[in-house]
């Protein structure tokens, strides 16, 4: 019996947040970039475009193309004409990344898993004009003599700040209209297979033997925790922590022995080899169960089964 039922029956639009469905149909999980990291990228871009604009202004001033009276207007115009193409073009050329985004390792992707269209990039950067720069300039130029503008500006600034916090993908208004969102770029790092440690390190075979009743106690979560533990051992610990690490190993070995009813003693120098052997046996066993449709996510798998049978 299900104790908890989903309240809403309407089908959500698209894949769940944090998951992207490419045309190949294999969902990919991607971390959604938060408001903070995006602001950092924005600030980097701002500095770059501002620098370019200042360089242009200095150039114009040295060529005597502008007078003192219109200096401010020309400056804001130049800033405008450097930043608008910068965002659109850089995101087109670098496939959804400005220089700031490259630095922060974040990236724009489209909602539906298809490739980014130029339309989407133009839209999200045009809305940036209304969402980021206009409130920004308004903040700088707030004028007490124009209460109407002040009020509108305040409402506007609050509105643009609230929108990204109100949806799960942290999309600002431009993202909503363009159908895009911003993700953390994943870094592919292939660590060695822990299962091969044992084969490489243990000289003699079959030091420990595990039977199927030994292996019926744990699920994938415990297995992968053990994987992390063994990987930490392999990567070489600093001297200070090695003592606590040895204690942890001892505790883990004892816990496992007690839980799976493993009768033989495990000597201190055998502990790592025991854990590796257990990891291999447990993984082979669990993967085999999984192939037969018995997916065990953690050690409570049998409780779920009891609960689900009516």
């Amino acid at each position, binding site marked *: 019996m299900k104790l908890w039922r989903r309240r809403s029956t309407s089908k959500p639009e698209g894949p769940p947040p944090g998951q992207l469905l490419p045309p190949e149909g*294999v969902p990919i999980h991607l971390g959604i970039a938060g408001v903070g990291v995006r602001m950092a990228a924005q600030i980097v871009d701002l500095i770059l475009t501002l620098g370019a604009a200042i360089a242009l202004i200095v150039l114009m001033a040295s060529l005597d193309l502008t007078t003192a009276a219109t200096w401010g207007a020309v400056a804001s115009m130049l800033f405008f004409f450097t930043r608008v193409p910068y965002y659109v073009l850089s995101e087109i050329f670098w496939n959804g990344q400005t220089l700031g985004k490259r630095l922060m390792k974040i990236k724009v992707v489209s909602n539906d898993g298809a490739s*980014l269209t130029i339309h989407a990039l133009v*839209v999200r950067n045009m809305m940036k004009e209304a969402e980021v720069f206009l409130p920004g300039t308004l903040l700088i130029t707030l004028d007490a003599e124009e209460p109407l503008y002040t009020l509108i500006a305040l409402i506007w600034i609050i509105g643009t700040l609230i929108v990204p916090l109100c949806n799960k993908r942290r999309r600002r208004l431009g993202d909503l*209209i*363009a159908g895009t969102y911003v993700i953390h770029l994943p870094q592919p790092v292939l660590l060695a*297979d822990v*299962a091969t440690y044992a084969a490489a390190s243990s000289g003699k075979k079959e030091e420990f033997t595990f039977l199927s009743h030994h292996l019926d106690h744990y699920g994938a979560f415990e297995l992968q925790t053990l994987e992390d533990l063994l990987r930490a051992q392999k990567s070489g610990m600093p001297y200070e922590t090695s003592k606590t690490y040895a204690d942890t190993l001892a505790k883990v070995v004892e816990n496992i022995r007690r839980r799976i009813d493993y009768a033989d003693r495990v000597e201190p120098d055998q502990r790592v080899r025991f854990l590796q052997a257990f990891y291999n046996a447990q993984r082979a066993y669990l993967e085999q169960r999984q192939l037969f449709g018995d997916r065990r996510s953690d050690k409570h798998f049998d409780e779920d089964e009891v609960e689900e049978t009516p």
Partner: protein
Amino acid sequence: MEATVDIRSARFREEREADWKRLEALVQEAESRGVTGLSFMQARDLAALYRQATTSLAIAREISLDKALLAYLEALTARAYLSVYAPQERLGGVVTKFLTKGAPQAMRRSWAFILLGFVCMGLGALCGYLLFFDNADWYHVFMPEGLAGGRGPGSTTEYLRGVIYDDDPDARGLGAFATFLFSHNTRIAIFVFGLGVFLCVPAIALIFYNGLMFGAFVALHVDRGLGWDIAGWLSIHGVTELSAICIACGAGLQLGFAVLFPGQRTRARALRDAGRDATKLAIVAALMLVAAALLEGFGRQLVQDMNTRLFIGWGMGALWVLWFALGGRTSGRGRS
């Protein structure tokens, strides 16, 4: 390390690891040099290996409990996906397409919203005009001091005429262009567009208020018998500029309308659909504002004759209308 491990998923990994490493290298190259920088063989391999990696990921999720492997494949597939599905369009083609087809078609599709923008501003102008003749003090209510530039019911007719036909060298050239581009009207245009997104009402109120100012300003000059002169002074850029504001308002209203009445779609979806045309309208409005600033910064000071000013202003308006009415007609018929 080979052969001694008889776990199925470890063998699965050993057999494919070389391909994954190769894909990783290809992706890195594609990311740094762009997909166009790859050779034919490399591009072909990138696509093939990417599809292979997605398959590996799907299989690994079923058969493997190796956390490191799953995380790696996930990240690798994501990176490869991002470089395989990069935008393929050419920038020049997009600009031409926008000018010849996209923009005029979008204008025609959203005529109702643009009309609404014009109506709101027109009503505001009418109200302002009539209220001024009712009582000239209304002028001070509508018009902020800074914008009027010293012109008001208190100023003399000669002064008003002087401003209209003024050849001040300072008010010309690049500086003036920049000043006018970021003038009051551009701010209004951006405001009505942005406010329309949040809700329709403030955009309508703002454009109505802008109309009020406009109406009162015109009424002041008509009152002094300068009706045609101010028409010329305003027309030369105003036809383009005020239309741009109305178009921006139309775009904002379209977005606001999608938020208020999404129909069967979700609000985000409705906003995205409406955004297709609204952005095109906004770009058109931006182009028109730049054109208006050019006319105001250069044209108005160079051309001092009333009739020529009227002709240039309304001629520009006619050209805009021609573009919107006739552009993209031939091939745009079939699509909705």
